[in-house]
């Protein structure tokens, strides 16, 4: 077990220990990525030696851990490439997509960036590279500039959402590195994006 996992488990345990009975009534949602559930065992109760007749029956509330733990966390891959695939696959980090020839953020793009900002704020050990990309329909030189504007728009939104600006760097690839090599609207839509890439600090 590597240190990251150890540290994570320690954290989960700590959160579980401070859980109070009140927590349970909140009926909080479990997320798919939860990997650690508090064991379903009763806590040890010390019985005073002078009173063997009277066993203490812990209350139900006190004994049972929540069946739906409030803790959501991930065992994050150490490899940066795997890490980026993981956070994208799990929807923890979401790219922002743009309309044709536009650098303004749609409400959908804003929602996706809010999701990304929330994860980044609770995972401060990672920095972020925002890549601006364009579809092939424009010209290369103008698109390099357009990609720069897209990347910056995404960065600005993340910063406004509470991510420290010093953690975010931008770069524009224009239309030089398309995600989808196709030549139709489906491909173009995929290629107009601010791509969020986690990088080590």
């Amino acid at each position, binding site marked *: 077990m590597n240190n990251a996992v150890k540290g994570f488990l320690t954290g989960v345990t700590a959160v579980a220990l401070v859980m109070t009975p009140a927590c349970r009534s909140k009926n909080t949602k479990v997320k798919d990525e939860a990997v650690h559930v508090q064991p379903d065992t009763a806590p040890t109760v010390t019985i005073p030696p002078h009173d063997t007749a009277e066993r203490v029956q812990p209350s139900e509330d006190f004994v049972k851990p929540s069946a739906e733990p409030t803790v959501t966390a991930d065992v994050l891959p150490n490899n940066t490439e795997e890490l980026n695939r993981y956070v994208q696959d799990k929807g923890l980090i979401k790219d922002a997509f743009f309309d044709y020839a536009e650098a303004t953020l749609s409400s959908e793009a804003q929602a996706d960036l809010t999701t990304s900002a929330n994860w980044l704020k609770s995972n401060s050990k990672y920095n972020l590279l925002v890549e601006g990309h364009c579809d092939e329909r424009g010209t*290369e030189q103008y698109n390099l500039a357009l990609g720069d*504007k897209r990347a*910056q728009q995404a960065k600005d939104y993340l910063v406004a959402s509470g991510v420290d600006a010093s953690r975010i760097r931008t*770069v524009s690839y224009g239309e030089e590195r398309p995600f989808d090599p196709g030549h139709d609207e489906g491909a173009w839509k995929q290629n107009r994006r601010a791509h969020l890439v986690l990088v080590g600090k």
Partner: protein
Amino acid sequence: MKRALIAVALAFIAASLAAQSQIVTTVDPNQATKVLKIAIPFPELTPPATSTNAAPVASEVIHAPFYSVLTRDIAASGVFAIAPIPPNVPASSNLAKQIGADFALKMTVWTERNAQTNADDIVVEARLLDTTGGQPFGKRYRGVVASLSLMAHSLSTDIVRAIYGKPGIFLSRIAFASDRTGTWEIWLMDWDGQNQRQITQHGALSILPSWSPDNERMVYTSFARGTSDMYIVNRRGGGRIRVATNLALNTSATFSPVGNDIAFVGSVNGNPDIYLIKDDSTNLRRLTSSATIESTPEWSPNGRQISFTSGRSGTPQIYVMDAEGTNVRRISFEGEWNDDAAWSPDGEQLAYTSRVNGRFQIRIMNLVDGQSRIIAAGEGSNEQPAWSPDGRWIAFQSNRSGKWQLYRMRVDGNDIQQLTSTGENKEPDWSKKIE
């Protein structure tokens, strides 16, 4: 090794046969060019008796790299038309007269031991003969086998200069970006697409090369450091320096035709604008300050004006400003996407990429009367025009084959020739000075 060969090739001697090289015919470049007929028989392969250490050369050694290159150059010159000739008749004034040509080019080629390099040089002796027995041009060229195409380009350049008054552009070169090694790198080729050679080896996306006015250096953009930076490299691939700007983007870099400024697109906080910087990374100046996208600066040939692309009207359009950033005026009004403006060498026309019916074509705007025309450039998208240094040709990229490849055509859109076919190739920039 390859570079060493090229260096040796560049050092070949062009010994002028001074007594015979008077120019007798000059076509006024401003007049409609009268095309002159020239007979070019295959060179004679018998060394002159006066030459020491001379030996015959096999015809196959010189056929493709010399004779074919020479005749292609002359045929493309716009000054000469190559006259059909009967087989096995040596070049002479009489031959020219008999077949109704204006000139015959008499060439003799042999090898000669070079005492300094201890290698065999190729020697080419060329004499241009007119129908009266006169010799308006004569010159001897010497070089290694690897420099045969360079000798052919030199000879064709000199013949055009002798008759037309202006040299041909056959020694010009086209810089471009190619992904044939798996990564986009900067490459270089002769004007006819021959001798394609790799200039940069970043192993990272490297694009948008642009020549210095003396043809000695190129400036381009590479992502070698993970960010996009400008680099300057000499035309043999050496002497690389990074131009430090402290800005983002650093794209579309282009040398001033006068002085040592570089115009480029820089960005601060996602606002791309046109900037200038000296080639030693000093004296950064901002020329535009619009909140919209500005890109793709290009100097007018006299260095007084800069064209650029701006999205300030809502769509990318071409603008021109004075080199100090003042006096901005819009140039393109047709279509909803125009970019890649390039000035003709005489400064009177702008060629640019213009979207027409959903695909890009090359448009040429006459800056004097404001009229523009689409050059018939065939299928696919046609982008990134680059003028030849004599203003007669335009190189461009097209995806008509399904891949991006480089082509050249005359400014009237005729004589389209594909120049590249390995990997994908784009962003041509033609050397500036006629050599």
